[in-house]
């Protein structure tokens, strides 16, 4: 588990257009400088929004990443919900702090 580096990569990607171009050209290649597990690499390459949310990526970071991939808003929310349904509660990070399990009563 290296949530810190998953988020660090996304933080840098979100704010750096040059890195976005590199990611566009070679998604796997741009990840070599980060300490990531295979699961994390696959989630970032796919991209698997639901898995990234389950791993604990902050929505404020994930939201910008989803926008980069032109994922429409309701689709973005759906993918996160599906990720929780498939993989279980958020593992780590701000949403796991107090036992956040994904979807509360609306």
């Amino acid at each position, binding site marked *: 588990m290296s949530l810190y580096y998953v988020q660090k990569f996304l933080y840098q990607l*979100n*704010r750096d257009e040059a890195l976005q171009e590199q990611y566009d050209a070679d998604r796997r290649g741009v990840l070599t400088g980060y300490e990531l597990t295979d699961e994390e690499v696959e989630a970032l390459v796919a991209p698997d929004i639901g898995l990234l949310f389950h791993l604990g990526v902050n929505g404020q970071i994930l939201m910008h990443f989803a926008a980069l991939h032109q994922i429409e*808003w309701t689709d973005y929310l759906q993918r996160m919900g599906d990720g929780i349904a498939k993989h279980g509660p958020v593992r780590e990070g701000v949403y796991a702090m107090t036992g956040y399990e994904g979807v509360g009563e*609306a």
Partner: protein
Amino acid sequence: MALVYAGVCSHAPGITGRADQADPDVRDGLYAAFHRMREDIEASGAEALIVVAAEHFANFFMDNMPSFAIGLADFYDGPIEDAQWLGIDKFCAPGNRDLSQRIIVEVMQTSDVAYAEEWKFDHGIAVPLHFLTPSFDMPIIPANINCQGPPLTPLHRSWAFGESLRRAADAVPEKIAIVGTGGISHWPATPDSGKINEAWDRDFLDRWCRNDRDALLAYDDLTVYADAGQGGFEIRTFICISAAAAGAPGTVHFCEPIPIFAVSCTIASYDL
């Protein structure tokens, strides 16, 4: 006294990015309140606008996260988000490095603040500016409180930061406006987005309008998280403005839950 305006507003990206999905009547009421806020700031004679933000990992990350930061530049680019997604074109907002430096030096006397000669605006500042200085003709001084990456800035330090900003604003000859931006209860960018605890919001704004320091500082993060979501951590920016207003009473000009914008959209100000 050089602080001439103090207020707060929402900054949710949906306000501009998902405008067409909201109830038009409520949305237009919000926009009208934003426009009145712009008019009030202009009428105050403000020569610069300090925006106290709760930025979302646009500039500050867990490798070196400041509790407080203030911008020290003549220009700021934004938004970092996809322009079409946010509904705001790429812009370059004016700053005022010299004024920033004088503000920072004064704030440093009483609050430990990081300064930043580079700062890219995200929706937390871009959405307010879209309404408040649409032609980018007023120098902006961005300030930030860590509301996102725990351990978060304590509430009482956010209050002290507001007092420091007030002292600094009063110490410079320029007329200064200050606007805090944040959500109240919300679960932004999660599957719970759209959930809003309106009663909690009203109670918070009641404390804010009374400018009741003890009541505002009585919150703790675990309860806030349970009742108001991780977005509720952004009350730090509102509380900072309360301190900057130095006991003045406040008025809520607009507050309506707009689920597609993920928050009780709020415009409020203090009667300085």
